[in-house]
């Protein structure tokens, strides 16, 4: 009998303790303590500086993007990807490091490397990507990276992209028409010589 009442007393007191804690939390309410109204408000992303020193490295995880003018087609990113969602095809350029105006090909990267290859296809299937960031480290030209953060001037952050059609999530970075263009250029040169 006494146990019965003791149980009731204990339950009540522990309930009151709990209520007390929640009540103090309620009084201490401030911004950041309450639900964020998501699409209107967003949690700020931590910022790190750009740079390829390890301390400053851009470590954001979002949509991948490629500066195709800088890409030398070395396939390093394609090989490291654990899910094989990067597909690259290249074609040997007629003259190393020379612009090809017909297909808007830039011969020299912003780091000053003379390109040997013309990238005719550079597809990243973002539906397969697991955002592991492995592809961004080995790139010698630092031209494949995730949007936003320190890169936001070039590419604002984009981590909430959706499309009606799945195939629209395959991002094609090579300039359209490069494949046919380079063949035409080559055959023209072949005819001239």
């Amino acid at each position, binding site marked *: 009998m006494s146990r019965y009442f003791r*149980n009731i007393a*204990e*339950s009540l*007191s*522990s*309930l009151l*303790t*709990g209520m007390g*804690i*929640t009540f103090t*939390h309620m009084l201490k309410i401030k911004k950041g*303590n309450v639900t964020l109204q998501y699409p209107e408000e967003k949690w700020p*992303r*931590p910022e*790190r500086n750009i740079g390829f020193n*390890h*301390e400053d*490295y851009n*470590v*954001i*995880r979002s949509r991948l993007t490629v500066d195709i003018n800088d890409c030398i087609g070395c396939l390093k990113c394609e090989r*490291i*990807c*654990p899910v094989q969602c990067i597909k690259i095809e290249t074609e040997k350029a007629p003259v190393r490091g020379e612009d090809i105006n017909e297909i808007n090909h830039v011969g020299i990267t912003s780091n000053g490397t003379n390109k040997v290859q013309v990238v005719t296809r550079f597809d990243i299937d973002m539906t397969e990507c*697991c*955002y*592991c*960031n*492995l592809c961004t*480290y080995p790139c010698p030209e630092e031209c494949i990276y*995730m949007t936003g953060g320190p890169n936001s001037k070039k590419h604002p952050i984009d981590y909430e992209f959706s499309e009606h059609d799945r195939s629209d999530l395959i991002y094609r970075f090579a300039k359209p028409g490069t494949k046919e263009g380079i063949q035409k250029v080559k055959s023209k040169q072949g005819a001239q010589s």
Partner: protein
Amino acid sequence: MDGDLMTINMGPNHPATHGVLRLKCQTDGEIISGITPVIGYLHRCFEKHSENVTYEQVIPYVDRCDYLSSMTMDFGYVVAVEKLMNIEVPEKVEYIRVVMAELQRIASHLLALGVYGMDMGAFTPMLYMLKERERILDLFELTCGARLLYNYMWVGGLSHDLPRGFVEMTYQFLDQFEPKIDEYDNVLSNNKIFVERTADIGVLPPDVAVNYGVTGPNLRASGVKWDLRKNEAYSIYDRFDFEVPIGEGIKGTVGDCWDRYYVRMIEIRESVKIVRQALAKMPKDGDVHKAVPKKIRPPKGSIYSRTESSRGDLGYYIISDGTPTPSRVKMRSPSFASLSAISEISEGWMMSDMISVLGSLDIVLGEIDR
């Protein structure tokens, strides 16, 4: 009725199964007479995949096995490969790894305890605990950009050095976090209703636990002092001063659900201690990429290496045939052993107690199914 047993299916989609798990419960009225867990709903061919990708490409897959404790999973894997290749890791890397693993342990236990409280009908503590967990995830995001699946630990090093201000921010976090633990004790651990639903329920005796291969907090709650961080100190765990908490049966019997819950609570405190010590002793400079091999190509041979993940004894058996691709990666999952003991410990209890037992085991299905 004449003793007919009824089969009740719980899951594969059930809010209390913590993932996609199906439990076939044989019940006599409301009393359970046997449970058959049906697993495999989250099978992702981790082991087969690993045979087709290189050593460094396995790490994102390892992350995804126990998605609530990715850092400790990575830790186990990289330690195994480093042993296989005989790599000596820089001091600084070791310290950063310990800090990350212990923060991850806190985060994982917070989630486990919060969700356990929610299973038992206490919703508010979960919100408080998840709030603190978010802070930890923010720290991880600052470090490596990801909040859940980090790919942060590499064989021989780390993907990045710590960002500027990380140490101060972690101290700040710990300072505001420590008083919260007492608050959790008040709001949940000593709550009478919670205690009534967990104390003396689902007792796992130490010999049964050992026979089933149960490890981690579940084993320690049964009174067995076994923690790989102490008993087989890998990495640099022998340099830290911390206790291995065991279940003492404060509210009921040793090895009951409440003990399993409370051992995790004390472990959070111990992890906080380790993080503080590691931050204080961490060398200021050092290149985290120094020991990262250009090509990961271990010599022919095999290794079994085990570490203590948030859920217990996590083992990796790796066979190398001298190529950049592992010939076999086998993972010993701690949750698998914990789950297999569920039939034994919930027999004779009511259906609602089974929820209590399942929650207290803190399983992650991603790791069980792999």
